């Protein structure tokens, strides 16, 4: 089939690996935002995605293996974006966030995790010694 005749579709997978260093987080969030912009997300939703991906990368930098790599996979499905962020370290458990106390001063370490949960529609977290930490975040196009 002539590739030019393939029906226009928004589905697809984009993979990106960045060094686990602070200066690369902006690249990750902008790349994922560019992928998200191919779906019907609003500007606000794309901003939510950017921040959640950046928080996941920051978490990987702070708790992942030193001098490691962060692997990011974005799967654009029908009406949703599934983003997976993987690193080789053992990040903090996402389930430890106390949402009622997140605004209290001195609890800044929980803010990033809280923001990911608040901004994305679904968050799944796994961490083990062999595979490291994997965070799967889903954002759906609002009705």
């Amino acid at each position, binding site marked *: 089939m002539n590739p030019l005749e393939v029906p226009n579709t928004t589905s697809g997978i984009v993979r990106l690996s960045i060094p686990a260093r602070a200066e690369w987080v*902006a690249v990750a969030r902008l790349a994922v935002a560019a992928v998200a912009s191919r779906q019907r997300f609003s500007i606000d939703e794309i901003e939510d995605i950017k921040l959640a991906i950046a928080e996941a990368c920051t978490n990987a930098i702070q708790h992942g293996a030193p001098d490691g790599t962060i692997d990011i996979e974005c799967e654009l499905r029908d009406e949703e974006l599934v983003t997976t962020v993987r690193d080789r370290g053992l990040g903090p458990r996402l389930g430890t966030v106390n949402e009622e106390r997140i605004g209290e001063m001195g609890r800044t370490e929980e803010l990033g995790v*809280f923001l990911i949960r608040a901004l994305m529609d679904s968050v799944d977290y796994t961490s083990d010694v062999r595979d490291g930490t994997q965070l799967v975040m889903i954002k759906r196009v609002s009705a």
Partner: protein
Amino acid sequence: MDIKVNVRESEGDAYVVDLTGEIDVYTSPKVKDAITELIDQEHYNLVINLEKVRYIDSTGLGVLIGGLKRVREHGGSVSLVCTNPQIKKIFDITGLVKIFGIFDDEQSAMKALA
């Protein structure tokens, strides 16, 4: 991506920190250094102007919270100027609107310090 930090003296003993750009894990140390320097010089009433900030993440929020904690130890305060809806939303969902004064303009932010 970068952040520009401009510090200027204002009314009374208050100082204004104008920030332009994006505050994230890479740029937030520069913001922290500016706020820390002001506090070390015993300036405890600060207006942090986020009007030209396009993006802030948890590390940026952490810097602002850290600054507020330090100035409060000396009876001071921090007021924020912010009209960007996306950034205001972040302060809202994290509950930080309860601990920061967030204003639409510098004059109002300055008045709240008094």
